């Protein structure tokens, strides 16, 4: 059984017990434990069920590469599925639950899949569920969705209670990994004066060195690590962040770091995760190496672990996975585990070494401790169900004859080490196959390159394929020196500490154990534990013609689970290479993509949640609106009142009331969101003549003119009223959504095409609050406020004037978007609310009625005025909308003019704007199509037009609409059928789009 031993445990504090819950049961661990070490200490060997076959699974590894020990953490609003027990630090009150089983971890009916496994091979889903076709959607998919899925999604109603944030950091040299290699690289670079930031994903520096032993400059590695840490901490140009993973390397030296601040201590206030958005000149990846499993039958039974993990649990946490551990290996490193176990008083019945012989110092040491070593040996299979029962020994060169059954309760396996090349590869770093170590390592001649074309990633230590402690230190120092040199600081002579460790004999590549294993064994030899992919699946894929490693990956799902195949990829592609009879480097690897391990969605979102999820733009009168029943409508990032609801009133009623009150007496609209761009210069008139379809240069100071703007494609993009302020200066109004876009449009043409024209622009949109005072009593209200002459004679239609009203400095525009007598009054934004209040107070006698965007829309539609975004959709030209009057015939050029002369644009069959009136007074559906005779080649009903705006007109008390119609203006009076959802077609008559006051009598008073 797995248990806590009395010695060792360098990372735990035995004076600080910590209690936590696993599947409801209370367990005890110590401060410093990971959830995995604490579970093992409680003899909880079985931690989850596998994804596909629901096989019992336990801890395999001791770090972020763990595929099996995946749990749901927390409860309620803090529940998170698929968390690795090996990287979860325990705390008092931690709650973990196992995954992928029903009804319980110990008794799971899904295990039936295991019995059916010979039918569930690679590509099973593709082959099985394709016929009959309709079954996919209605039978197969619902069933598969129910039974598949890794972990359980949090409850849809739950809300993350934690805070997250981003942080932008800049450095010369970023070192990823705080093992001895990372520390040495950081020291070398930092001593030279370069700015260094070191990230370590765990809570501890030193990496594997303190567990693996040896000496550095005569010190225990742990002591050297502390010395290095202290030196870095004392340097003003160096910084270490622990619990911070280098998650991804991106173009031009951009790196994401994932800092976990309170996962281990949820009682601490402050952000849970911080996403570091780092820009660095050079990156040193000191990310170490990951041990590979061996592919023998039963290698997934709980108790079969990586040899390094067994050693880690013993040395770091004082936990023994078993009393009797068989070590299976193809290299010397695993002997360290055997030695450590025996030195701790535990039993190692045998070391099964696949190599024909071994001569290393570690083998000698093991033998001298009395450990039985079998060379040329294989684990033919491991027996056991929910935990290891025995190992069957055979010969590696054979087919799987069992020579001996060795009883044990744990197996420590090692198939060699793979450098962690993920971060090297994220941004295009290439790999080279190291035959001697049977591993891919970074090819320094093909490093990722940055904005200047020079390499910006350097691998260090084991991540570069340097495994002996002394080589690690040397390699790391050179990496630090190279980085410093590349950022322009000179290191001079560098000091490299002396590392001592036993020399190791060469490993022998072992991709299948035994090498000639029969199919029955191969079907139980797991490559990818998390996605349940076996040796036989990859071989089947190869047999079925999936030769590319990327295809095989997708067909078998090898490496596609949350662990992204950290343990399985190399074994999988070696298996594929063997099956194809190819060399491993020719088969190659799949693409390494960030993040290195999953990072939280919260960290990605950062601060963007709740009220700061996105910017909400507010006018100076926002608070008044909010307090007076505003039914809000988003318009870009602005919030505008759609209507103001009085107590008990429906939105529809409120809109009708607002329209009628305005038409009858007096309405008030917050028009502050309209864009206001000042354009000035000797060439301003000429410039606006190019921007607008109509002539602006002839506009007289004091006057206003409605104008249309098109893109160079000819399509209508914005409209608004232009006021000429003086000879050199214009003020251009844009639509609410158009201010920033049109200002950018102006700057683009001025900066990139007509840079010799003398024109300046300023977007003054937010300098002013603007209020439309609308209705037959509008003038009376302004006259009551007093201060300036707003009579017809002094301020005619389409004129503007500066002055004061009620003591406020104003600019008054006599313009109308409603057909009523109307003034738009601009005041400085900081006075906007006071001015609004003043108008409301003074307007009481005329029952002044604030109205929202829907009343605005209805009133403009009653007048046949187009709305950008309703009548236009990026494919409509002004000519389609009957706006030819606003297109200058005199101008040689304007933006869009040439495009409007293209054949398709002048086609008489283009749909044109008309008004539509339903026969029964109902309201047409928005976007409804006008039905034409017959059907197209796809069997769809032909169309001859569509509705662009549709409303109930309270003024006319009937449904009115605008639409684009084939030959529309020539078909006045014709009745057309319109689509009407699932109802019978709606009938509407083509009419003039100006429904109300066509002569303009109401506004010209």
């Amino acid at each position, binding site marked *: 059984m797995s248990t806590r031993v009395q010695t060792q445990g360098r990372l735990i504090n035995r004076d600080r017990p910590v209690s936590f819950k696993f599947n409801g049961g209370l367990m005890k661990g110590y401060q410093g434990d990971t959830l995995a070490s604490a579970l093992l200490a409680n003899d909880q060997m079985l931690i989850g069920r596998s994804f596909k076959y629901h096989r019992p699974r336990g801890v395999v590894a001791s770090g972020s590469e763990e595929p099996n020990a995946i749990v749901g953490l927390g409860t309620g609003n803090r529940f998170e599925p698929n968390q690795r027990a090996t990287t979860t630090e325990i705390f008092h009150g931690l709650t973990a639950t196992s995954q992928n089983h029903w009804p319980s971890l110990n008794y799971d009916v899904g295990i039936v899949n295991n019995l059916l496994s010979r039918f569930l091979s690679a590509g099973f889903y593709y082959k099985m569920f394709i016929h009959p076709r309709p079954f996919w959607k209605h039978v197969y998919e619902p069933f598969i969705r129910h039974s598949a899925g890794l972990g359980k999604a949090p409850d849809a109603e739950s809300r993350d209670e934690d805070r997250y944030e981003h942080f932008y950091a800049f450095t010369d040299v970023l070192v990823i990994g705080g093992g001895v290699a990372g520390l040495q690289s950081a020291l070398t670079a930092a001593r030279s004066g370069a700015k260094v930031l070191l990230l370590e994903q765990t809570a501890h520096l030193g990496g594997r060195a303190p567990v693996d032993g040896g000496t550095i400059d005569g010190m225990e590695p742990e002591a050297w690590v502390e010395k290095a840490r202290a030196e870095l901490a004392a340097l003003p140009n160096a910084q270490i962040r622990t619990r911070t993973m280098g998650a991804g390397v991106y173009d031009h030296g951009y790196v994401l770091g994932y800092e976990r601040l309170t996962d281990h201590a949820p009682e601490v206030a402050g952000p849970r995760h911080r996403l570091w958005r780092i820009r660095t000149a050079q990156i040193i990846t000191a990310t170490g190496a990951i041990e590979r499993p061996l592919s023998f039958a039963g290698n997934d039974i709980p108790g079969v672990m990586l040899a390094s993990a067994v050693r880690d649990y013993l040395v770091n946490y004082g936990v023994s996975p078993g009393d009797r551990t068989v070590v299976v290996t193809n290299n010397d490193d695993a002997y360290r585990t055997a030695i450590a176990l025996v030195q701790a008083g535990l039993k190692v019945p045998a070391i099964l070494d696949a190599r024909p012989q071994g001569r290393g110092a570690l083998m000698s040491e093991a033998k001298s401790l009395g450990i039985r070593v079998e060379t040329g040996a294989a684990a033919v299979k491991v027996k056991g169900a929910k935990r290891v029962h025995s190992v069957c020994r055979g010969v590696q060169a054979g087919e799987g004859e069992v020579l001996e059954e060795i009883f044990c309760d744990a197996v420590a396996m090692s198939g060699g080490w793979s450098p962690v090349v993920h971060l090297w590869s994220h941004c295009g770093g290439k790999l080279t196959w190291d035959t001697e170590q049977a591993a891919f390592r970074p090819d320094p001649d093909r490093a990722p390159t940055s*904005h200047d074309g020079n390499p910006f990633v350097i691998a260090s230590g084991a991540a570069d394929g340097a495994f002996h402690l002394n080589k690690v230190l040397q390699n790391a120092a050179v990496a630090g020196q190279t980085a410093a040199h590349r950022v322009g600081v000179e290191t001079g002579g560098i000091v490299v500490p002396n590392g001592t460790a036993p020399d190791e004999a060469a490993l022998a590549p072992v991709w299948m154990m035994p090498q000639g294993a029969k199919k029955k064994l191969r079907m139980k030899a797991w490559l990818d534990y998390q996605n349940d992919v076996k040796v036989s699946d990859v071989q089947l894929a190869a047999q079925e013609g999936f030769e590319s490693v990327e295809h095989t990956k997708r067909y078998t799902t090898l490496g596609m689970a949350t662990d992204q195949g950290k343990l399985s990829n190399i074994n999988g592609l070696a298996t594929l290479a063997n099956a194809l009879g190819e060399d491993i480097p020719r088969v190659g690897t799949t693409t390494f993509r960030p993040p290195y391990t999953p990072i939280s969605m919260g960290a990605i979102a950062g601060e963007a949640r709740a009220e700061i999820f996105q910017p909400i733009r507010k006018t100076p009168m926002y608070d008044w609106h909010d307090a007076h029943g505003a039914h809000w409508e988003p318009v870009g990032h602005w919030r505008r009142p759609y209507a103001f609801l009085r107590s008990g009133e429906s939105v529809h009623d409120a809109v009708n009331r607002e329209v009628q009150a305005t038409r009858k007496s007096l309405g008030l609209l917050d028009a502050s969101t309209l864009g206001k761009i000042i354009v000035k210069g000797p060439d301003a008139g000429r410039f606006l003549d190019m921007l607008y379809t109509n002539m602006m240069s002839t506009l007289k100071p004091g006057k206003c003119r409605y104008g249309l703007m098109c893109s160079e494609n000819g399509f209508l993009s914005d409209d608004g009223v232009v006021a000429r302020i003086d000879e050199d200066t214009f003020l251009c109004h844009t639509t609410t959504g158009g201010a920033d876009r049109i200002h950018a449009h102006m700057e683009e043409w001025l900066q990139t095409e007509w840079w010799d024209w003398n024109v300046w622009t300023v977007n003054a949109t937010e300098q002013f609050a603007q209020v439309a005072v609308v209705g037959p009593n509008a003038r009376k209200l302004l006259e009551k406020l007093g201060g300036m002459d707003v009579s017809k004679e002094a301020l005619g239609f389409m004129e503007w004037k500066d002055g004061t009203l009620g003591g406020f400095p104003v600019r008054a525009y006599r313009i109308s978007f409603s057909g009523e007598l109307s003034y738009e009054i601009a005041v400085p934004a900081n006075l906007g609310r006071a001015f609004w209040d003043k108008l409301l107070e003074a307007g009481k006698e005329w029952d002044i009625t604030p109205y929202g965007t829907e009343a605005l829309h209805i009133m403009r539609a009653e007048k046949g005025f187009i709305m950008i975004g309703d009548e236009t959709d990026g494919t409509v030209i002004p000519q389609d909308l009957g706006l030819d009057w606003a297109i200058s015939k005199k101008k040689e050029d304007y933006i869009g*003019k040439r495009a409007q002369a293209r054949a398709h644009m002048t086609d008489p069959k283009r749909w044109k704007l008309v008004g539509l009136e339903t026969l029964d007074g109902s309201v047409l559906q928005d976007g409804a199509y006008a039905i034409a005779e017959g059907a197209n080649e796809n069997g769809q009903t032909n169309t001859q037009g569509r509705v662009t705006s549709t409303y109930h007109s309270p003024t006319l008390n009937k449904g009115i609409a605008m639409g684009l119609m084939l030959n529309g203006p020539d078909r006045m009076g014709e009745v057309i059928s319109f689509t009407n959802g699932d109802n019978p077609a709606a009938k509407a008559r083509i009419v003039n789009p100006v429904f109300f006051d066509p002569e303009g009598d109401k506004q010209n008073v």
Partner: protein
Amino acid sequence: MLLITCPYCGVAAEETELHGGGEAHLKRFGPGSNDDDFTSYLFHRENPKGVHFERWRHVNGCGKWFHAARCTNTLEVFGSYSAQTTEPPKDLLDTIRAKRPGFTWRDLA
């Protein structure tokens, strides 16, 4: 994430401060131009694997449009320069020729 230095304010701006504006050095064709020229101006774009000349705007910054020469394959930025020119500066072309012998782009080489 790209890092391009704005030639107007000197900021080495990350992509989130920038707005891409497509191909550089287009010659505008207006009214009176023939269909081929106009279609080419409006729709036809270079799509090189390699050296490319582009327009960018430092939109979350000084607001200036500028040009950049960039390799679409390696993302190397050879240089950035004024928006107010109809062709890349000679020293930049020399730099590119040295780094990418034999490159061509439209009629540049």
